[in-house]
């Protein structure tokens, strides 16, 4: 007897944390036979709006590309403008940027802890890790004035120097987080349900994995040591000592272990940054922003966000408005072609866990 496939719409209204997008699934019984991603629910046309705004006004837009992590987007915008303009960043500014980026990475991974476990029904983890993430948001608030969107890194440095006693607060938060990460391990990685639901599920095929555009923790979970921070060191990552964790399994479990190790590495990086932080200027002055003309040229810069490579292509035609801005997010490949190719054969109940583990971020895909 030949079974008939049923079409199921997963989204756009669904309680997953991956955002407002839809996956159209064809299923036989519980098993998926084909999947198609449909996006467009969050398209705000940032890049079109940016053409009507000047270079400095871009900051308020650019940090909003991917909601859970705004700092890599700011960094990549600031650095692309610096690359076209030839603007230098003082050493202290670079160190502060690295600190902000790594704090943002920890915050993203804590958000991911909640999402990954929420998709498997382990809601306690969300209560813990979102609560702990708030301590990092408090640090951001003190430093930049904003909890989620910071608008902090701009061409030539950062907007504000570290407040007094800020580094002590950061160190105290890191100590606290390190203690908490042990609890997370007990709750999550030692949990046999989590192990059974993730091991061998959502396997990304290892052959030609680079050609398929896979980046970030997903690539490292497949055993390839690739990270923009060492491949193309930006800011001061070449002066810092850290490891790139990799795993061999290429399933949700392996990617979870990679992300867990990344939090530890980020804590290590921030400690080094605070140790080595030089004194001095934190930004170089730039001309009147209303008349600021960036010379004609283009640049593509990349940054390693918590979900993988984020690239940004900026074109200037020598006026006060940018000619073109174009962002490439990690999810652009992961959530469409990769997700569509690995979902067939999986169970419906695992779709949301797979989406979380691939780092799906809907606002970044459609921008």
């Amino acid at each position, binding site marked *: 007897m030949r079974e008939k496939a049923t079409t199921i719409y997963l989204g756009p209204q669904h309680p997953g944390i991956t955002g407002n997008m839809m996956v159209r699934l064809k299923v036989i019984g519980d098993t998926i036979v084909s999947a198609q991603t449909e*996006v*467009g629910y969050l398209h705000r046309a940032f890049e*079109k709006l940016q053409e009507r705004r000047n270079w400095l006004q871009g900051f308020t837009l650019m940090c909003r590309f991917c909601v859970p992590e705004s700092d890599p987007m700011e960094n990549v915008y600031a650095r692309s403008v610096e690359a076209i303009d030839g603007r230098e960043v003082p050493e202290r500014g670079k160190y502060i940027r690295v600190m902000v980026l790594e704090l943002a990475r920890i915050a993203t991974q804590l958000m991911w802890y909640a999402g990954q476990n929420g998709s498997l029904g382990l809601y306690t983890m969300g209560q813990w890790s979102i609560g702990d993430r708030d301590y990092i948001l408090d640090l951001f608030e003190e430093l930049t004035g904003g909890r989620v969107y910071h608008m902090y890194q701009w061409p030539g440095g950062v907007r504000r120097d570290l407040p007094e006693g800020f580094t002590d607060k950061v160190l105290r938060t890191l100590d606290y987080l390190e203690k908490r990460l042990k609890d997370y391990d007990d709750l999550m990685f030692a949990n046999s349900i989590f192990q059974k639901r993730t091991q061998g599920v959502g396997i990304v095929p290892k052959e030609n994995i*680079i*050609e398929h555009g896979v980046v970030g923790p997903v690539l490292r979970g497949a055993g390839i040591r690739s990270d923009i921070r060492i*491949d193309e060191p930006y800011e001061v990552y070449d002066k810092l000592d850290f490891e790139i964790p990799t795993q061999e399994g290429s399933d949700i479990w392996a990617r979870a272990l990679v992300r867990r190790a990344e939090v530890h590495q980020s804590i290590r990086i921030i400690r080094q940054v605070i140790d080595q932080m030089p004194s001095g200027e934190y930004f170089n002055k730039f001309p009147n922003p209303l008349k600021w003309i960036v010379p004609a040229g283009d640049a*593509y810069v990349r940054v390693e966000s918590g979900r993988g490579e984020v690239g940004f*292509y900026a*074109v200037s035609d020598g006026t006060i408005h940018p000619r073109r801005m174009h962002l*490439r997010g990690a999810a652009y490949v992961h959530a469409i072609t990769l997700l569509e190719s690995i979902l067939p054969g999986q169970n419906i109940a695992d779709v949301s866990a797979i989406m979380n583990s691939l780092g799906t971020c809907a606002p970044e895909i459609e921008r």
Partner: protein
Amino acid sequence: MKEIKDKMIAQIKAVFPEAVNKDYDGNRLDLTVNKEAVPSVLLYLKDSMGFRHLSHIAYVDWIEQGEFELVYILWSPLDKVKLYVHTRINRENPVIENIDMIWRQANTYEREIREMLGIEFTGLVAPDEFILEDWDDIPPFRKDFDTLEYVNRTFWHRPGREDAQDVRSTISERSGEEIPDFAKKYSR
């Protein structure tokens, strides 16, 4: 880095003599080819020169020259070189060869470009709509599409927005509060 890049340029020039290159500092290398050569150049770069990772396909509308520009950005994990392959397409009849058999993820980029600029990719198999739904205007990322004019036509603005008045004066009038001198300087 310089030697690696020079060697690469020599290798590309030997196979594609018409390609124009431009050198930059650091690990950046630029290449300009005409649109007919794009698939063969990209295939050669991927298979024979180690540019395995397609990082991005960017698109720019150069309306003054009557051209669209596509920029394929490739990355070589082994040599750590970032290669930009530029190509220009006439705005009147924008057609270019589809490359999603070289890199599968190019399919997504091409769907977006087809929708946002109206460039046709020969042989592209994908659903018609990507981001927009029932769009009946010109493709929105073309420079001649005026987004504010479209908004005025389609949506409403909250009254009080268009005069761009400072809200502080309204608030102070309502509550009888004085605006401090330092703040007056910034009021319009």
